[in-house]
């Protein structure tokens, strides 16, 4: 059964898009061979499709893969979760050739630690952090002198027993003797 133009017009786009089943497609095809009007419609639709494809192809023809991909890759790496980015950074940083930075950093760090002892008195790992004073030498010029160091309160006391010479106005009373310490 032959198709009429109206029927073909309704199916023409589907025929062009290869969406008809085989028998329908054959019937439309036969009609198009015989009908110049429908054939012209077909030509126009095909021309439109070609023009559209070609215009986009021309505009897209300058698109190179390398810059396209490098931008996508950059964004992918940017978007990674923090722990993945951290691991990437660790892998990148601990690459042996890059480890050279660690040597000066360690040296500078050690120098700083050692110099802090000098720069900030009272800070540090060195000796001498106790408050207990050490008496290097002592001379009482004839007077009895006692040195007492008490570690609990970190106290060092140098005591002069001055009363024995009786020269002070309150000598008899001030003698600490067993009163002190």
């Amino acid at each position: 059964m032959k198709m009429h133009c109206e029927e073909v017009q309704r199916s023409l786009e589907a025929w062009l898009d290869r969406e008809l089943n085989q028998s329908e497609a054959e019937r439309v095809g036969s009609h198009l061979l015989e009908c110049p009007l429908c054939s012209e419609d077909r030509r126009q639709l095909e021309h439109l499709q070609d023009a559209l494809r070609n215009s986009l192809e021309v505009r897209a023809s300058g698109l190179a893969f390398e810059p396209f991909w490098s931008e996508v890759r950059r964004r992918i790496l940017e978007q990674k979760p923090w722990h993945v980015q951290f691991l990437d950074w660790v892998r990148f940083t601990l690459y042996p050739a890059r480890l050279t930075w660690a040597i000066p950093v360690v040296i500078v760090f050690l120098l700083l630690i050692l110099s802090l002892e000098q720069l900030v008195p009272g800070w540090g790992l060195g000796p001498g952090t106790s408050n207990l004073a050490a008496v290097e030498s002592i001379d009482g010029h004839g007077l009895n002198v006692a040195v007492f160091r008490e570690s609990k309160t970190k106290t060092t006391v140098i005591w002069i027993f001055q009363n024995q010479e009786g020269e002070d106005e309150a000598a008899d009373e001030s003698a600490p003797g067993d009163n002190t310490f």
Partner: protein
Amino acid sequence: MELSDWELVQKCQAGEIAAFQELVVRYYHKVFLVVLGVLNHQEDALEVAQETFLRAYKKIKGFRGGSAFYTWLYRIAVNLSIDFQRRQKRSPMEFRETLDDVIDEREESGRDPFCSLQSKEIGKKLVAAIDDLTPDHRAVIVMRAVEGLSYKDISRILGCSEGTVMSRLHYARKKLQEKLGPFL
């Protein structure tokens, strides 16, 4: 032996970025064409096409292979393009910036810019005519005319029925034919 899309997807899901690169090799040009068709703007299309692959990479672990990879990818591309277009709300005139430049460049390099177009004029008319379509109509006609996708694939990509695809295609063709009438 060349791996299938699905095999490459599985490698991507295992963390192989090289496999994803291979998928980009296969589809970057097609995706760009579709996006360019919807946006009708070179620089915006590049931006959105790259964003499409970024989204695809981020979501690829959730891709189960229920549909072909390219339909899944095109769905991302078209959705992003339509969203982008709505956000930008450019005036139609702004879309026409690049075609003359592109044509001029091609002519300067000695190539015929449109193999099957009658003239440079028809290209300009076409760009202007596309501008007058909605993004949904542009998406349908580009995927059919440029990529040759079936109604079924297009309906999957756009999340609509095949009937809607057919009617949108018909409408878009009619509009373009009206605008380009004398040149076809």
